[in-house]
Every structure is written in C-alpha cells, then in structure tokens.
C-alpha cells in the first residue's frame, strides 16, 4: 500500500503589545504596537512567506498534483496580511487555486481557549472558518489546535463541531512504545481521527537543519528521503509538522533551506514509495489502528510537550485566569471593539513571553520576543489588561443604566 507523507505548516504572527505603562491605565486604550507588528510582518514576508510560497507553487506546478501541503493560518495573521502585506495573502490565494493545498481550522485568535472555555473555543473556531472561507473559498475540514494542543476532551469538542480529523504531537510520554506513524482516534469519540507529528523527522528540518555540530550536517534531500524510507519501513504515515517561519526566518536562506525544499519532492517521489497527501486525504486513506488516550493536554512545545510554555508558572496562571474571568462580562457588553481586544489579548504569545523556562528552551522562546524578561512581559500585559477590565466595567455600567431607562 502507498505510504503517506504529510506536510503541514503553521503560519502565525501575534499582535505584540506596545510598552503599556501604569499611567496609561484608564487614559489610553491603544494596546498594540502597530509599528513593530508591521515591521516584523514585512520582514518575515520578505524572508519567508513570499519566497516560500513561490517555491511551493512552483513545486505543485512541476509535479502536477503529486506534491501537496497543508497550512493553518491564524486569523490574526490573516488580518495582518490584509493590513500590511496583501501580496502575501494573494500568493496564498494562488496556492489555494491549485487544489493541492489544504487549509486547516483553528482558533481565530491563536488562543488557548480550548484549555479553559468551551464557548470561546467554539466561537473562535467558527470565526476562523468564516475567514478561511472568505479568503480562500473553502471551508476547512481538518482541525489543528494552536501549537498542536490536544487532550481527549478537546478532541471530543472538536468532533462535536463536525471535524473528523485533527492534528497533534506524537508526544513520547503519550505514545510509549507506539509509533506516531499511524492514524489513531480520539478516546471519547472514535469518529475523530488523529494524525501525530513525527517530531524526529520534523525537527531534523525545523531545528537541526543548519546545526553544524550535528554529525548529519549538511542535510540533503537524498539523505532525508533515505531516512524516510528507514522510518517508514513498517509504518504508514509520516507527518511533518512545523512553523512556516522555519523556511527563511529560523533557517535563513543562506543555510540552503530553500534549495533543500525545492529538491525534496523529487527525491521522495523517485526514491521512496511515499505519496504527498494532505491531512484529510491521509485520514481517508488509512485505517486508524487504536484509540489514543490523552487525559492531560499535550502540545508540540519544549521538551515537556505539554502546555507549560503558556500556563505553568505563577505569572502565566495569574494573567490567564484574570483574563478569562472577564469572558462573561465582555460577551454581555456585545461591544465589537471590546470583543476584538479581548480576543487579541487571548493570543497565546502573550503568555509564551512570560515563560520562565529560559534555560532549556530559551532560544525558541526568545525568538520574536519583544521583552527582555518574562517579568516585563507580565507587567506590561497586566497593565493593558487592567485598562481593558476598566473598559468592560464601564460598558457594563452603561448598559445597565440603559436597561433601567428602557424598563421605565
């Protein structure tokens, strides 16, 4: 039987906060650093999104339907493309037109809502699906939670929303002796199929590609195809999931990453019996082998493969809970600008900056990080959140006043 090779890329850029000082609380409700966000997006567009999209399009045309990839683009990234780099959005649309690209569903705000609020989670997934439909004309069928966060319950909630395939991490502590290279199912609702990231082969590209201390450096597409053969000897599916910014940003153009990707499909198609498939196609093609039990949330982040990169230390816990405490009050206001800011404050990146695990995974945490220390990140975030809370309270008082008048 044909084996499947599944590429999926995460595309996301956060709305970074500006330096929001204590004296701004109650006086100024502009929280975001538009200049930095624009500058960084433009830089990443030039280094990564535009050249890499061009390569993917070239490969799809060259192999006439045999090369396929999947993207999950966060809603906030789409917004930034519209505002600062419409040509990136255009190039994604051209990719969508080839029908060889699958767009995955996720939360619009790249938020951690799945861990705390089923309601918010659902609302944001809906919002995102609508955005994908609007831009690319397709409704996403496969689901990918941000940073591959997954648990039995999250999976069940995703299945309830009508998705039948979901992507997550092939975390060792969950799999044990099992291989990530098969299709599994959710432990609560077996209709939801699970694709697991092969982190060894994914990280060979995403993290180790340019590492000269690695004995396998330099990595060539032939060598990589051989590894795929070895890894897939008895297995069926290899899922290569990674940040899209790997190409050109984390691994610079000078490392040869673009040439590697240009050559990879040829090497794979010529030397292995792998076929490129999108997540939905993989789920259709392969039978699940077993349910996978994940009682506690996993993710693709850090050595622990859990959610401790975002929620774990006391700073993150405090910020996270103080934010979601406001959910009901925010939604009750029905104020579009409040809801929009509420969603932007939910972006997982704000919590990621507060992570104190600087020593083991520092390099990754520092990337794109506007703060020197997690403490600064926390102070800044809490100041902005305090102002936001004041706005919510004021709005609630106003609408209560109106309701009273109306009842009279």
């Amino acid at each position, binding site marked *: 039987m044909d084996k499947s090779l599944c590429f999926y890329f995460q595309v996301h850029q956060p709305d970074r906060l500006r330096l929001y000082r204590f*004296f701004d609380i109650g006086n100024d409700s502009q929280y975001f650093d538009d200049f930095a966000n624009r500058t960084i997006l433009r830089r990443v567009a030039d280094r990564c999104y535009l050249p890499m999209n061009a390569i993917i399009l070239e490969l799809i045309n060259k192999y006439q339907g045999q090369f396929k990839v999947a993207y999950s683009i966060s809603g906030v990234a789409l917004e930034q493309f519209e505002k600062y780099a419409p040509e990136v959005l255009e190039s994604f649309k051209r990719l969508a037109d080839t029908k060889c690209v699958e767009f995955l569903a996720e939360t619009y705000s790249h938020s951690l809502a799945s861990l705390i609020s089923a309601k918010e989670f659902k609302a944001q997934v809906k919002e995102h699906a609508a955005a994908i439909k609007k831009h690319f004309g397709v409704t996403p069928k496969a689901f990918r939670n941000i940073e591959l966060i997954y648990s039995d319950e999250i999976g069940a909630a995703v299945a309830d929303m009508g998705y039948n395939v979901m992507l997550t991490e092939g975390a060792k502590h969950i799999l044990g002796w099992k291989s990530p290279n098969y299709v599994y199912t959710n432990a609560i609702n077996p209709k939801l199929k699970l694709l697991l990231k092969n982190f060894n082969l994914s990280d060979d590209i995403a993290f180790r590609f340019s590492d000269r201390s690695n004995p396998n450096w330099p990595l060539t597409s032939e060598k990589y195809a051989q590894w795929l053969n070895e890894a897939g000897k008895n297995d069926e599916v290899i899922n290569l999931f990674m940040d899209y910014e790997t190409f050109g940003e984390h691994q610079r153009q000078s490392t040869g990453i673009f040439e590697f990707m240009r050559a990879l499909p040829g090497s794979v198609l010529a030397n292995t019996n792998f076929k490129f498939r999108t997540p939905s196609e993989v789920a259709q093609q392969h039978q699940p082998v077993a349910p996978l039990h994940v009682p506690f949330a996993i993710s693709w982040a850090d050595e622990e493969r859990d959610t401790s990169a975002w929620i774990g230390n006391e700073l993150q816990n405090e910020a996270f809970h*103080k934010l979601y405490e406001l959910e009901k009050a925010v939604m009750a206001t029905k104020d579009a600008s409040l809801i929009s800011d509420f969603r932007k404050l939910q972006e997982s990146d704000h919590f990621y900056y507060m992570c104190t695990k600087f020593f083991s995974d520092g390099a990754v945490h520092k990337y794109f990080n506007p703060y020197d220390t997690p403490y600064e990140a926390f102070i800044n975030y809490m100041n902005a959140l*305090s102002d936001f809370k004041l706005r919510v309270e004021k709005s609630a008082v106003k609408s209560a006043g109106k309701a009273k008048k109306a009842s009279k």
Partner: protein
Amino acid sequence: MFGWEFPPHIAGGLGTACHGLTKGLAKHDVDILFVMPSASGDEDQSAVKIVNASDVPFTQTWSDMQTFLNKVDFLKVSSNLVPYIDPQLYTEYAGSKMEKSEFEQFKVKYGSKYKFSGKYGANLMEEVASYAMVAATIASENTFDVIHAHDWLTYAAGIAAKRVSGKPLVIHVHATSFDRGSADNIDTRVYEIERMGMLAADKVITVSNLTRNIVINKYGIDPSKVITVHNAVDFNEFKQVDVQRGVDDKIVTFLGRITFQKGPEYFIEAAAKVLKRYPKARFVMAGNGDLMNRSIRRVAKLGIADRFHFTGFLRGADVKKMFAYSDVYVMPSVSEPFGISPLEAMKSNVPTIISKQSGVAEVLKYAIKVDFWDIDAMADAMYGLLAYPALSQMSMRCGMDEVNELKWENAALKIKDVYSMAIAGE
C-alpha cells in the same frame, strides 16, 4: 566640604541633602567650598563654591609623596571595591587585579589630573583613593576652619585633608553599611573605611537617632562625639502637578528601590490583606531593584496582579506624577537612616504610613507609624486611610503642617553648633 554628588546630577538622596544643607548653612553666614569628584558646571553655586576634583592636578613633591603615602596608608585597599557586588562579579574583578605597588601608581599620576566619573561604578575604590589625594592638595591650597565629609566615599578625603591641614574633621553619616546589607551580610571593607572615618573625626553627625545608635553600638564610637541632626527638606521649587487620573480607584503607593532594606514584601502582603476588605483599591510599586522579580512572582501567586501594578524605575517628573496619583503612601523600610520620600509624599498632600524603623519617624508626630514586620498593623493603617475620609483628611492636613516645619535652616544651625564645638575642641 567633601561630597560625592550635587544637584542636578544625582543618583540618590545624598546630593539633595548636601544641596539643602549648604543653602541652610549659607543663611547662617558659613562660607563653603564644596569639593566633588566630577562637577559638570551646571550646579547651583548660589550657596557654595564648587571645586571640581577632576580639575585639580596632583602636586605633592616627591618627599611629600612618601610622607603622604604614610599618611594615607589606610587606603591600602585594592581597587576591586564596588558598593553592591555579587560573588560572580567579584571573581572577575579579583582575577584582573593589578599588582602594582602604590608608590608606582602615584609616580605615574604625579602632576596629572585624575578624571573622576563621580558615579558608583567598578572603579569606585580607585576613585575614592584618588579623591583623597586631590583632597590633600586642595587642603594645602585653601584656608578654612573645619572639614565636613559626607558618607564613606568622602571619609578618606576628609581624613587626608585633616592630616595635611590639621583642621578639625566632621563626618556626616547619611547611611551605614548596616542599611545597605542585612546585619550579618555587610561589606567589611566599606565598614572598615566607615569606622576609620568615625574614629578620625572630631565630631560625627548622624541623620537620626536610629543611625546614631548604629554608629555607637556597631562601630564602637564614643557617644559623646556623635550628634544627631535630622535632615530637612527643601520645597522651595516644589510644584504640585496636575494629572489626568485614568482610574477612579484609590491608589496606595510604594516608591523606592525594591531591595531588602526597603521592605517591599511587607507592602505586598499587607496589600493582599487590604484587597480582601477593600477590593476597589489599587497598589503601585514604583522602582526597581534586586527583589523586583521575586515581588512580581509573589503578587502573581497571591492572585492580585490586576490590582497591583509595577511601574519600573521612575524619573523626576514621573515621581511627582506618581505622588499626584496616590491616596496613601507607604514606606515599610526595614532600615532607613532617614527617608526623605515620605516628606515629599506629605508635601504632595498624600497621607503617609512609615515604618518605626526609619529615621524620619523620629521627627514626624502625625504620620502613621507601624513596625515594618507587622503586616496586620500596616493593612489596618492602609484600610483606615482608604475607608475613613476623616482620617485621611486629618493626616493630610497635619502632614503638610509638619513637613513645612522641617527646614534646612534649623538643621544648619545645629550643624553650625557642631562646627563650633569641633573648632573649640569640646
């Protein structure tokens, strides 16, 4: 008079105190030659004549040099002395120590000028030593009746001037090593210099009785020559600032370095207690320091981070803004020789809570005083000032009256008396 800094370029309260004190002395017809390591020329010279030590060459002759070296032998401290140092930094400095005899160093410097930074950096001890040498030159070239040296950085200069001129020396203790570290963790090299200065002095002025006790008990100085002259505060140029307050909630403020000495953790614990009873309050910790990160973690852990804000280090205008924002000011210092900031708060019409372990507590009758460790009492006081307008209004009114009474003129008169005693050899 030997100082280390003078407004407008100041790092701490010492420069401000020197400024106020010299202005007060000028009113009592005392002429002052104020020597500082690095003057920038824009200092207020209405009351003093500033001598910039960086402009004075070493002009001792060779034979003088030998005797001078004997005179300043107390300075055999290598230049790796930094006021606030951690073990790692120390190893770095110790590794790069220069093994050059002092005499050679002086030979190199003869006739040249030393460019002082006037800061508190890694070369501090070298600066302190060079400052003493320049002090000797200045002492031999000027006429005066008494020498007045402020804090340990200038004690060596004071001693050198005394040995060259034979005039009496008055040492002014604004802070001691015991206020900088905890009691069992002090910099012994600084302690030695401080003690040397106090022993060599004819009179020692302390800024509070609290400090006077430390000088007597911890440095073993003869009580009869230690005199307390409380600091005052100069509000001539003080202006209330108007601010647009973004929040309706009442604000309780801590303003200062976030270090062990200032007792930030007691403020945090008391804040958590108050918030349980008075949830509409906000707390602000303004400043930075080595306990800042720990404080942030504690605030997060207590779950009060949406009501407890950190501003980072605040400069001039922002400090005034912060006072204008405040409804209660708290200084929970574990050890504070004097403490000028509560006076600024009171002048800004902010009711103030101070710890009994601060020198300023000795001169303020109406400020609310608590033990720094008594977080229940501190929380009570905060709550009282927030919840009962009568109390805060009285605190404001009395505070303003009291602070207006604290004039440098009065403090200067006492200092002039100390001068007379030193000159008379009493």
